[in-house]
């Protein structure tokens, strides 16, 4: 009887404890999250957030704009993509929606809008609102058809900007700029210097298959490939090299670390170490290398080796030597002694015992770990590349820091994600093939 009551009490106490836990743990999590909301100043974030930046990022990632720019001090009109010096249309390449006749420029915008530059006098024709006249002189003088300022015009004494669904116009005393948006990435395949730039894809195909040679000393196909490869804007050649550098960093770092830590792991494994002191020392070395963060190694190494992929590879190598040393020595401690004994009984030397008794047992585990880390290091190499200055990580940070080339940022992100997914699939495939041989994995 007493036993039953004791059991009942015990059970009830456990229920109470469980009920308490069910409320206390979510409660603690909630309190912590509230603390973080305050500590990270999340309410203040709403003011600091630049949603206009987000809008620029999104439109720029999928569209590009063409600027028609007039220098109001010296005169002269230039048509360029994204206002870049490297993407200026030559006189014979002018898009058909811009017509330039000396100081008079006619710009056709979609939805029936248009802009006329007549020297310093600019007229924006809005089909629903009427003509907007601006004169650049000492400041900008604005002349509207209505008395009040509509909300798509932003005007001050020195600057007028008009933003409509058809495009954008900004005018200051030094220059007038009209921007028209187009979908897609500009000049992705051919830059403006390329003879293929103005052609449509069917024209390009025709000229590659049977057209007259554009450059007499080589075929149109090789000219086309070289034009794409040497594209001045998107720099496909450099991007491919950068991707290669990133993978190279991961490859050299991971496999170099594996080669270095394999012999060291024997010294750290309890059943192979020549003495306890050496084993202890080796373990502390591995712990130290894992403890010193990749960030610290990266900084120290980039001081010694300068920017580039070698530095990144060495940073990965140093960090991973610690990781592999620990993993490998644990795998070695789990080997079956019987196989080694069997080999020893045939009179094998120490080297032969390791080669035929130990390595075949641990190889599948080790290779699987190495390949797994190789894949995850491809990702790390992107970040390390951004710090040491090499690979696709560098290109990405540069593109983000200019805060203008969002289409390139999008392009690099797609490439990075594709690269990581490919490496993931490749390492998974190798692990299945090399290790089990039956396609079942692990």
């Amino acid at each position: 009887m007493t036993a039953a009551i004791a059991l009942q009490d015990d059970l009830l106490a456990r229920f109470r404890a469980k009920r308490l836990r069910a409320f206390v743990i979510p409660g603690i999590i909630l309190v912590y999250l509230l603390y973080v909301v305050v500590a990270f100043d999340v309410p203040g974030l709403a003011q600091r957030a630049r949603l206009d930046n987000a809008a620029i990022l999104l439109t720029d990632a999928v569209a590009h704009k063409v600027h028609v720019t007039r220098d109001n001090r010296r005169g002269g009109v230039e048509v360029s993509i994204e206002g870049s010096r490297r993407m200026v249309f030559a006189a014979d390449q002018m898009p058909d929606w811009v017509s330039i006749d000396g100081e008079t420029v006619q710009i056709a915008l979609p939805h029936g809008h248009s802009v006329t530059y007549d020297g310093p006098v600019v007229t924006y024709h809005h089909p629903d609102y009427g003509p907007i006249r601006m004169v650049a002189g000492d400041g900008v003088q604005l002349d509207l058809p209505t008395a009040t300022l509509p909300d798509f015009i932003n005007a001050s004494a020195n600057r007028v900007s008009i933003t409509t669904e058809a495009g954008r116009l900004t005018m200051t005393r030094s220059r007038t700029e009209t921007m028209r948006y187009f979908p897609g990435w500009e000049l992705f395949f051919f830059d403006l210097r390329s003879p293929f730039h103005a052609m449509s894809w069917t024209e390009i195909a025709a000229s590659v298959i049977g057209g007259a040679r554009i450059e007499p000393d080589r075929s149109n196909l090789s000219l086309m490939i070289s034009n794409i490869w040497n594209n001045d804007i998107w720099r496909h050649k450099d991007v491919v090299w950068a991707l290669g550098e990133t993978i190279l960093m991961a490859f050299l770092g991971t496999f170099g670390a594996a080669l270095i830590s394999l012999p060291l792991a024997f010294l750290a494994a309890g059943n192979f170490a020549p003495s306890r002191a050496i084993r202890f020392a080796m373990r502390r070395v591995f712990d130290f290398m894992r403890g010193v963060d990749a960030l610290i190694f990266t900084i120290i190494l980039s001081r010694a080796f300068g920017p580039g992929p070698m530095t990144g590879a060495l940073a990965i190598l140093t960090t991973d030597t610690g990781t592999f040393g620990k993993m490998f020595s644990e795998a070695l401690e789990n080997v079956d002694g019987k196989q080694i004994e069997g080999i020893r009984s045939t009179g094998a030397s120490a080297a032969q015992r390791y080669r035929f008794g130990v390595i075949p047992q641990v190889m599948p585990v080790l290779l699987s770990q190495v390949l797994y880390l190789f894949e995850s290091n491809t990702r790390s190499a992107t970040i390390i590349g951004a710090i040491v200055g090499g690979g696709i990580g560098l290109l990405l940070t540069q593109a983000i820091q200019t805060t203008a080339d969002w289409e390139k940022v999008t392009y690099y992100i797609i490439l990075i994600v594709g690269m990581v997914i490919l490496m993931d699939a490749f390492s998974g495939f190798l692990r299945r093939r090399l290790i089990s041989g039956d396609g079942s994995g692990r």
Partner: protein
Amino acid sequence: MTASDALPGAPGAIRDTYLALTRRRRLYSGIVLLLFVVFFVSGFRIAEDRNAGGFLDGLSHIFDFPAAMIREAAEKAANLPGHMLDVLPALVETINIAAVSTLLGTLAGMVLALLATRGLAPWPRLAGVFRRVSDILRAVPEIVVALVLIFVLGSGPVPAAIAIALHTTGAMGKLFSEVNENVDPKPLEGLASVGASWGQRMWLGVIPQVAPNYFSYALLRFEINIRASAILGFVGAGGIGYELKNAMTFGQGKLDEAAGIFLVLFATIVIFDQLSSMVRNRLTYGA
């Protein structure tokens, strides 16, 4: 040569096939090894070519910077504890980034894993879609998300926390769904037989079975995320990484500050590694 050699299955024939097999295996491993060596050596030379400083040249200078740092730190040894105290708020921020992102990433990863596991998913046809979602979340390096968010939200801890949380969600989604595949279905059947909803079956039937595993993975992830948040700080997301970058850019004269930050960072990582492995060991082997 005896007559028995001609018979299939005779010792000689077996030996011959065995030797042929070994030879072929050796050839294949030889080719793989050769390819590996070629890749490795040529990769090394390319990396050497494209690096600003050479390998051997740099090797002799490898200890220059640590030596300069230690020298400066030793000269101003009295300042060192002060520097270490100064970076404590930044350190707390780094740890908070890691903790929040681990927490949110683990919770989101838990849901994602349940949605993506065959046999548990409420919409089995969409399980593959959720799997792809976690693959993509895992594939995007944290730095990409962090840099883009810094542009929109301004620099600070929030972009880093979001970036790491997204990556953690993907990683946890994959790991947890592997754990979920080994769940014992009997409690689920029992719950289903009394008319439990999907949420109740998961919360009462699956989570209690897998919670220790989830928790141990979450702790492991927390270690990884501390490192990640220190690195992201270096590219402008606040915390101790940012302090380190500032101390480094001043270079000479501020190196004692950098040394202090190095020490704090090293100690933090070692302490959290030890703590988490202690807790994980207790989970695996009992108290």
